[in-house]
């Protein structure tokens, strides 16, 4: 895993990377055809740097991870889901001006 960078996950490696992770995981459900996801992308990458070692940041394209997206009822993207010990703890849907601070707030309340 590259230091401070997001990693790609899909239906095959989701369990290993996300469910079995020892530290909390942020998963960005996105797609190449989604304009708002492209705006969210750099912010997610920035968070991967800021929370390096504390939170694992993953990106799941719903085109490659359809089963996982369905399992977590993702029907609007970007959807950011936070996992801890394999369980969903919080989520953010859509991109708003408060996007970055909303996610940070949620992460901070988990890693405290």
């Amino acid at each position, binding site marked *: 895993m590259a230091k401070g960078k997001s990693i790609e996950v899909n239906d095959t490696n989701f369990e290993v990377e996300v469910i079995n992770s020892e530290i909390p995981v942020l998963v960005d459900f996105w797609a190449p055809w989604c304009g708002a996801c492209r705006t969210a992308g750099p912010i997610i990458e920035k968070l991967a740097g800021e929370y390096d070692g504390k939170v694992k940041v993953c990106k799941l394209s719903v085109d490659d991870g359809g089963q996982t997206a369905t399992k977590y009822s993702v029907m*609007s993207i970007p959807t950011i889901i936070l996992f801890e010990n394999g369980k969903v703890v919080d989520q953010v849907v*859509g991109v708003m001006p408060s996007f970055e601070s909303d996610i940070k707030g949620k992460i901070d309340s988990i890693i405290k």
Partner: protein
Amino acid sequence: MVKNTYDVIIIGGGPAGLTAGIYTSRDRLKTLLLEKAICGGLVATADSIENYPGFPDGIKGKDLLLKFKKQAEEFGTEVKELEGVKSIKQENGKIKVQTNKEEYNTHSLIVASGSIPKSLGIPGEKELLGRGVSYCVICDGPFFKDKDVVVVGCGNSGLQEGEALLKFVKSVTFVEFLPYMKAAKILQERLQKNKKATFLLNHKITSINGKNIVDSITVKNRETNEEKKLQVAGVFMYVGFLPNSKFLEGVVKLDNTGYIKTNERMETSVPGIYAIGDIRSKEVRQIDVACGEATVAAVSIQYYLEEMKTKTK
């Protein structure tokens, strides 16, 4: 301080705001455009635009607006996305714009903040948002491939986006409160021929149901009062729009529905503040109308700033 002072600040990155940027930048006015989400406005959520001149085969809303943005930026408009305006104040002839990130000073302001999709406030609508309830086919539509969905509202937006859905979903039921459809006749004709489309006119949607995700909706026939449930996976809401003018309350004069009043030069009740596009109090809300208003506002601002300069000399 100088760094954050502009000749023109534009609020909103839809067709109106971006066109205004093209014009004011070409006039060599230092222009900043603030967009609370990403540029494109409501148009970017339209699958296909068929009535904007110059594109006889239609164009995706997103593609059209990317061209607008590129044009504005190439002429010098500084565009900041994910920056929402919190408040506007006027002090000693200068206008102060406070966003979620910074404060800016400007000599003039163009409000092009548009409108936002209206919600009905029915049970399940808020709770199941992003879990089957959507206000944007182009954003969320692909999740409903081969599923049964509902489009609420048979205006132009509803029928246009419903038509986009029909390309890949199993069926679309269109629910309309009125006994007739308001959409352009050409859209009605095309959709009525489509075997996967059903129309429930004079029906009211009373609730959206489902535990974790949408599984059905309840509709009521307004004539017979008979209620029935429809099994659907998705509900796309196109029931009209509301003005995005909260941050302007008490600053400029609004009409009784919250849209900004202007004169023919796009001037609001406050000198130096202009309003264009869907946020403006008017009858017709279309892309080309928004662009026209942007042009008028840019020219008015040019005169206004010249006049201000002469006054201070």
